[in-house]
């Protein structure tokens, strides 16, 4: 009890207990919570007669640092031309460190006994992914790799080898998998997707430039053989010096599947809580075929 009374909240509540009944007129703001704006003195705004004069005054052109207006920074130092040359085409991955993942699990936002993928991570509403601006998913980084305690089954789009090793050390499982723009959009906000009545898309195979990454067992890519992954797993344990516990495998997704348990090509009705699979042969044929994502090579 003494411990409870020591907290500031309990002390405040003790005062409230002894006080008379709190009425509407007793409610008031904290002292200094609202301040009126400071009055401008004569000394202020000396660079112009009024604020408007400052706003409408001629300003130096963008990039001007010194001297001539026709020699802005970007012309004085043209070596920076290629600094962000690929900004309109490069892929962006949202970094997800192992510390953040452990914290999300600690706080109850993620269930470690269920497989974790883009939909799980986005359902916490802690991350924003916009596939339309070439954000391609999550990058599992190794911050907090020393003390990651949860054997999780996680699917990300990019992972460093030390992060993979940290998860595998405690018996977890990492897979890197590619989501094309449409399927990532579905995975990021499934509710909106289902409410629109859109068909659950088929995950396309990665573009040529990414094929190598996802076929490499070192990266635990989803396109390579299971035997190779097992070999690499053992190899990384030997190199890094830890013993491999039994792997936790919660569930497996097909190569072209977006959601666990929902085959691609089906329509989900949230009102009826039902999944409707296609019956037309043409549609089935379409969703059976492998397709390559040629949008971003």
């Amino acid at each position, binding site marked *: 009890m003494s*411990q409870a009374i020591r907290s500031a909240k309990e002390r405040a*509540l003790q005062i*409230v*207990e002894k006080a008379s*009944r709190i009425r509407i007129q007793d409610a008031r703001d904290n002292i200094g919570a609202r301040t009126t704006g400071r009055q401008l003195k004569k000394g202020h705004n000396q660079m112009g007669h009024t604020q408007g004069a400052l706003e409408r005054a001629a300003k130096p052109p963008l990039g001007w640092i010194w001297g001539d207006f026709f020699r802005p920074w970007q012309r004085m130092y043209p070596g920076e031309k290629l600094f962000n040359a690929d900004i309109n085409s490069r892929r962006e991955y949202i970094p997800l460190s192992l510390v953040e993942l452990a914290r999300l699990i600690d706080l109850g936002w993620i269930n470690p006994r269920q497989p974790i993928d883009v939909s799980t991570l986005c359902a916490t509403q802690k991350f924003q992914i916009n596939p339309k601006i070439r954000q391609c998913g999550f990058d599992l980084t190794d911050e907090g790799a020393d003390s990651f305690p949860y054997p999780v089954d996680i699917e990300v789009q990019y992972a460093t080898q030390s992060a993979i090793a940290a998860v595998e050390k405690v018996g977890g499982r990492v897979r890197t998998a590619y989501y094309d723009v449409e399927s990532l959009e579905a995975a990021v906000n499934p509710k909106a997707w289902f409410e629109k009545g859109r068909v659950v898309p088929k995950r396309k195979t990665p573009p040529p430039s990414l094929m190598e990454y996802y076929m490499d067992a070192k990266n635990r890519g989803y396109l390579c053989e299971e035997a190779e992954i097992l070999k690499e797993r053992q190899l990384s344990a030997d190199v890094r010096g830890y013993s491999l516990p039994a792997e936790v495998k919660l569930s497996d997704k097909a190569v072209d599947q977006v959601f666990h348990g929902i085959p691609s090509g089906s329509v989900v009705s949230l009102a009826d809580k039902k999944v409707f699979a296609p019956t037309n042969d043409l549609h089935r044929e379409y969703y059976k075929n492998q397709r390559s994502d040629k949008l971003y090579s």
Partner: protein
Amino acid sequence: MLSRQIRHLLISNRALSTATSSTSGSSSDTQRPLWRKPESPFVQIPQAWVSSLETIEDQKQGLVDLHPDIFRTSPRIDILHRNLTWQSVYRNVQMTKMLTKAEMPGGGRKPWPQKKTGRAHVGSIRAPQFIRGGFANGVRGPRTWFYMLPDAVRIQGLCVALTLKHTQDDLHIVDNLQNLQNGDPKFWIDLCEARNYGYSVLFVDDADTVSGGLAEAQQALPWLNVMPVYGLNCFSLIKYDTVVLSRNALDRIEERLLGHIHRAGPMNKKYRYMDYKEKILQEAEAEEHPHMPPVV
């Protein structure tokens, strides 16, 4: 369990007196699991007696655990103040509209020549310097003071109000509010007097409508009011001296508030008129009242 009871009773001295005066029927404790109960050793679990409204005397039926995140939060009076201010201000609309020179009738003709009359140079009899002229910089309604408090502040405000009521022993839990036997106003006056309910009482129930004795008493006694759970707000909680919750209402309040406290996503949702226009304009469509037609 016993130690917790004793601990709580020691803290609340007024509860001590009620506990000692209660009958030995407290063995039928209405224990219930609390969702996401904080694990901190500093948190103590608030409790309340459950009684019945069938008799004038307060006959305890058992104790019920309340959620500390709702009924034992920090007494943030400033958050309460923000809620009360918002509730009184957001619905204000100023309909005054002072007419400008252009909106007044007439005044198109120049009243007298510009020069050589010895009078002021004016162009219109509705100029602002004229008596019966238009107004410059007047009040130009309709003006609204509408704004939305962030969700977090509104949720915390409700928790603070409930905490204050519980801490000051003005929050009572009863088993049932529906279909009570006695609707005699004298009975209810005596009941509130015997239980020290104060000058005004608010009953909160889970259901939309109330029937039976409480409904009759509520018609007769203006200081006695009934409210559904979805109507619960800071102003009413503070305005009424005593708040009486039914067990169903208690469960519902905890479920709703905890759901919002622990929800994912931002707590400062934008409430734009354009998003809610259709809903607001159709709000009163189903309402039919001969004397008070809905105003939208």
